[in-house]
């Protein structure tokens, strides 16, 4: 009896089989077993225990704390290296790159702009703690706690020098990337930092093919252009860079006083050591003041211009949102509505949403992009303006010191400084150096 009914349904539904959301339908009654049959439980394996998130936060704090001690007290590059390797193994290969301070800014943006999402305390901690530490001790996070930074750092082979103007120009990109990431997260479109994280595929030993290729090319390039992701892409690094410029303490190349021996001059793979200014540059020129004023006056202009330009391209920017792209597609090609080889269209048509509803949603998203575009563009304009302004601010320097913004506090240069090391070969060269 049951068999016949089943067969009937089978044929019927095969005929009118359509793309439906799976509302549950009790087509067949629950069987009444006569034997001792025990119905199995549907298993539900649990995720990692909740307290483990706090273990992650503790490990982060511990790693950074030890690094601070190694930098300021022990001055040991070797120590920093091994802490960094540990962090790479823990946050990179064991935690597989998630949770990560770099991506956490998106959770923050989503949490602020999307009332339906509350940011987990652990994600907030991962965002805030490295920034706070940076305000007091420099980019400790980059030195040893960031798996992305460390994997590049340990693979540096023969770093080449990069012209300062190239560095400065490419160095603007992280700010743009940061702004875009916040815009895309705030509009609920995408988490681009996570999506285009080049190393996560390596940590997980598997990803889409092009991401693996990207990750490996970053590592290969990083053998010669040290830490390319950190320098020219990392959006969190952009924030740390700013914070570090104003940090209370910072790694210093020399333990006491710089004797201008120039030994550390080429030791930094990231060209982050600032040289003493030359005597002839030491008198500020009048034209510099003029340039300063011109650039300063240009900043508001750049902000407005940037805001206008980015906001005007809201249509392009918002295409990444699924509602917008689908609406665009259907408006441009209404004949596609009946197409059956496009899953998105097919699902939309079966969903009961009308084209008007879709267009309404898409317009809302676009409106957000138009508004956000002003902020993003203004921010980019401000960054460009301040970078220009920074070019003409004259800073006198008498010693070799790490550039606070760009230095990752890796500690390499400390080993080159002969001060306080009586057995350093430098002291044997010239007897008058011996008293150092």
């Amino acid at each position, binding site marked *: 009896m049951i068999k016949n009914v089943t067969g009937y349904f089978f044929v019927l539904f*095969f005929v009118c089989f359509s*793309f*439906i959301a799976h509302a549950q339908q009790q*087509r067949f009654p629950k069987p009444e077993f*006569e034997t001792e049959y025990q*119905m199995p439980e549907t298993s539900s394996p649990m*995720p990692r225990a909740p307290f483990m998130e706090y273990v992650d936060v503790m490990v982060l704090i511990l790693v950074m704390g030890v690094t601070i001690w190694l930098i300021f007290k022990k001055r040991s590059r070797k120590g920093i290296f091994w802490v960094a390797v540990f962090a790479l193994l823990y946050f990179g290969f064991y935690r597989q790159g998630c949770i990560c301070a770099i991506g956490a800014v998106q959770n923050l943006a989503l949490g602020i702009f999307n009332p339906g999402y509350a940011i987990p305390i652990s994600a907030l901690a991962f965002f805030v703690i490295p920034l706070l530490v940076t305000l007091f001790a420099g980019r400790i996070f980059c030195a040893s706690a960031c798996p992305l930074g460390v994997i590049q750092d340990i693979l540096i082979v023969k770093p080449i020098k990069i012209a300062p103007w190239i560095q400065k120009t490419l160095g603007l990109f992280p700010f743009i990337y940061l702004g875009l990431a916040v815009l895309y997260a705030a509009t609920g479109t995408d988490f681009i930092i996570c999506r285009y994280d080049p190393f996560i595929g390596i940590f997980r030993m598997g990803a889409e093919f092009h991401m693996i290729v990207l990750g490996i090319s970053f590592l290969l390039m990083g053998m010669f252009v040290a830490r390319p992701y950190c320098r020219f892409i990392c959006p969190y690094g952009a924030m740390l860079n700013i914070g570090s*410029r104003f940090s209370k303490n910072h790694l210093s190349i020399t333990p006491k006083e710089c004797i201008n021996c120039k030994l550390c001059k080429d030791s930094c793979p990231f060209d982050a050591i600032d040289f003493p200014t030359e005597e002839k540059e030491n008198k500020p020129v009048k034209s510099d003041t003029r340039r300063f004023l011109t650039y300063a006056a240009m900043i508001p202009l750049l902000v407005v211009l940037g805001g206008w330009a980015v906001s005007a391209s809201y249509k392009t920017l918002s295409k990444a949102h699924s509602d917008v792209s689908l609406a665009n597609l259907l408006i441009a090609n209404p004949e596609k509505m009946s197409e059956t080889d496009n899953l998105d269209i097919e699902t939309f048509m079966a969903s009961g949403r009308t084209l008007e509803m879709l267009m309404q949603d898409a317009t809302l998203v676009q409106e957000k992009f138009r508004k956000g575009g002003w902020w993003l563009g203004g921010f980019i304009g401000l960054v460009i303006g301040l970078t220009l302004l920074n070019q003409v601010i004259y800073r006198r320097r008498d010693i070799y010191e790490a550039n606070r913004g760009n230095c990752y506090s890796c500690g390499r240069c400390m080993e080159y400084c002969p001060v306080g090391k009586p057995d350093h070969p430098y002291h044997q060269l010239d007897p008058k150096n011996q008293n150092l």
Partner: protein
Amino acid sequence: MTKRIDRRNFIRGCARYSLGFGLAGVVGFVAKDTIAGEWVWQIDPFKCTSCGRCATHCVLNPSAVKCVHAYALCGYCDLCGGYLKPGHISRDTAAENMLCPTDAIKRKYVEEPYYEYKIIEELCIGCAKCVKGCSAFGNGSLHLQIRHDLCVNCNECAIARVCPSDAISRVPKTDPYLIKGDFNKGEDV
């Protein structure tokens, strides 16, 4: 010289405190609705349309999405829409009759006329073929779930981004499954 350094330190200090307060402000702003536990990703089986993307878009290979069976909803049919291909030749365990491409569903005779269907999760790739069949012809007891022993809990689930039905969303870690029959969302149970 010391004057210069003093001035620099003063500017640095001012900037540091403004940045610090700015940061504290942002944190204070979001602090009022943080949650203690993390989110995890889960599929709402009532929104899922078995499109097949779960098998191909997870960052893991094979996917962390597996078919699960809500036995309490199952009709234990002999002619299982999730197990057998439409137009199958005979109603047995021969591979050519089976819907599942990886042979991940085990059929076990219980008693006349009932059969139990069990998913071997190690073999399942989350392709949703069986889910589609079961939902269309049967009770819809087979459905997809993200398995949290496998899922690495990406900050943004790669499948959620491409799911055409918006079926994947964040759920609290303390309640990480939306297993059919366990939560009252389907009206006509």
